[in-house]
């Protein structure tokens, strides 16, 4: 891989862009999903509507979504981030709501009965115990987001996709290999580390 050795700074820049966009999108998606998820956990109607809407968004093909956003936000990082947040909503909202709902009833009953306020029950008991399920959702969202970012290069969002597209249009295989394999490695790394976190959290809250 002579090309890689000669151009490792370019690869690193692309990787850095990729991680930055992904983290931004995940952060935004997490905050939004946490709020909606908590609401949905307590309200069946909200749950169904939120899941239906976010499920609909998730089904839209990545490139189509990015393309449809162009008339609205043009090209660039914002476009890709909006798409990523939209895709992540379904799994995150579902897992936040499910995680909270799966906290054993007697635990929340005891908490309320001993005089914890609803907010105290939520933040001290329900969310900590829902954490493993929430992280499981984050794991899937992270992988999704990394995948979208690859395509996002085509709407000028930057990231490892730029290497792939450049390699394709110049018929230069090493760039394609580097971009694609790095993207795959990033996705696998994110998945494995979040999986470890999930396992550790599960052991804590049996």
């Amino acid at each position, binding site marked *: 891989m002579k090309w890689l050795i000669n151009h490792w700074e370019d690869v690193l820049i692309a990787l850095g862009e990729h991680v930055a966009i992904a983290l931004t999108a995940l952060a935004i998606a997490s905050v939004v999903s946490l709020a909606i998820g908590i609401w949905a956990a307590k309200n069946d109607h909200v749950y169904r509507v939120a899941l239906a809407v976010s499920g609909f968004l998730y089904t839209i093909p990545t490139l189509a979504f990015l393309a449809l956003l162009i008339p609205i936000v043009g090209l660039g990082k914002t476009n890709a981030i909006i798409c990523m947040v939209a895709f992540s909503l379904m799994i995150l909202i579902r897992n936040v709501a499910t995680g909270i709902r799966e906290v*054993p009833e*007697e*635990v929340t009953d*005891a*908490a309320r*009965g*001993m*005089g*914890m306020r609803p907010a105290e029950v939520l933040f001290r008991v329900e969310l900590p*115990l829902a954490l493993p399920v929430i992280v499981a959702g984050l794991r899937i969202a992270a992988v999704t987001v990394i995948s979208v970012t690859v395509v996002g290069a085509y709407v000028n969002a930057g990231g490892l996709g730029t290497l792939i597209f450049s390699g394709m249009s110049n018929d230069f295989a090493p760039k394609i290999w580097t971009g694609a394999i790095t993207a795959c490695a990033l996705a696998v790394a994110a998945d494995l580390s979040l999986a470890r976190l999930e396992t550790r959290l599960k052991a804590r809250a049996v």
Partner: protein
Amino acid sequence: MIDLEALTKSFPGAPRPAVDRLTLTIPGGEVCVLIGPSGCGKTTTMRMINRMIEPDAGTISVEGRNVLHVDPVALRRSIGYVIQQVGLFPHWSIADNIATVPRLLGWEPTRTEARVDELLSLVGMEPGQYRQRFPRELSGGQKQRVGVARALAADPPVMLMDEPFGALDPITRARLQAEFLRILRGLKKTIVFVTHDIDEAIKMGDRIAIMKDGQLVQYDTPEAILARPVDAFVDEFVGSDRALKRLALIPAADVATTDVRIVEASPRLAANASAHDALAAMLAAGADCVTLVDENGAPRGTITLAAMRTRLTARDGTAGEMHPLPIK
């Protein structure tokens, strides 16, 4: 003291109220057992006292204060709450679990820590050994001991207990029942105890409130309920062996005469046994009387079958023979 006045609660879609104009006064420092068949409203009633369920009508007063005018959260922090599945927080240590209400109340850490150790000892669990453990490491019985300790932590004057020992095996249950009574002896607390087990009610209660279809059927001491069930429902509920159950409540010494006639074949019984034990001894030996002896073996008195029969009918309005089995 707890005062329930015309307490009523209906759930949507149900044909009758879950709790129907219930009026009941629990004297301070007593254990009042709420008992009845499934759906009689006993748990609903208990959960209205700490406003986990809001009543539709009627009033509830604890120590003279109308609880419906108090902030529910503040109310619950002053009432101990023990439920069947315990509900320990799995992500917190035993010490953190017990410290929950003191911390909610803002106690100083040193005071809280001392209290946690005190309570662990009280429920028979060595503080040094159990403080840092987690709920998943405990057995069912141990979990419920922690549950009781947790409820006692802020020293509330009132405690609500919803079938606290129901999920335990019979041996552990009996042990915890005895231990809890022992713990209560040193404290002055008003306890509302819900159960569906009549034997547990007789064992634990100073007073028993029998409920059916949301209404109070009989409210009296265990002895009185066993001796004078107010109707056929209560009679059947306490069981056709209620005369035997009564004997378990009567100390053998109460039925003995000091007239010590040492009959050779009569079985010996410790003086602190119950009349029930005396009857069992008689039947096992095929004898008509039992001699009570003290710890040195010296005879203290004699119990005869006739004396037991007389005692059972003494304050009874009805005839003394065992109630006939209901005809199916």
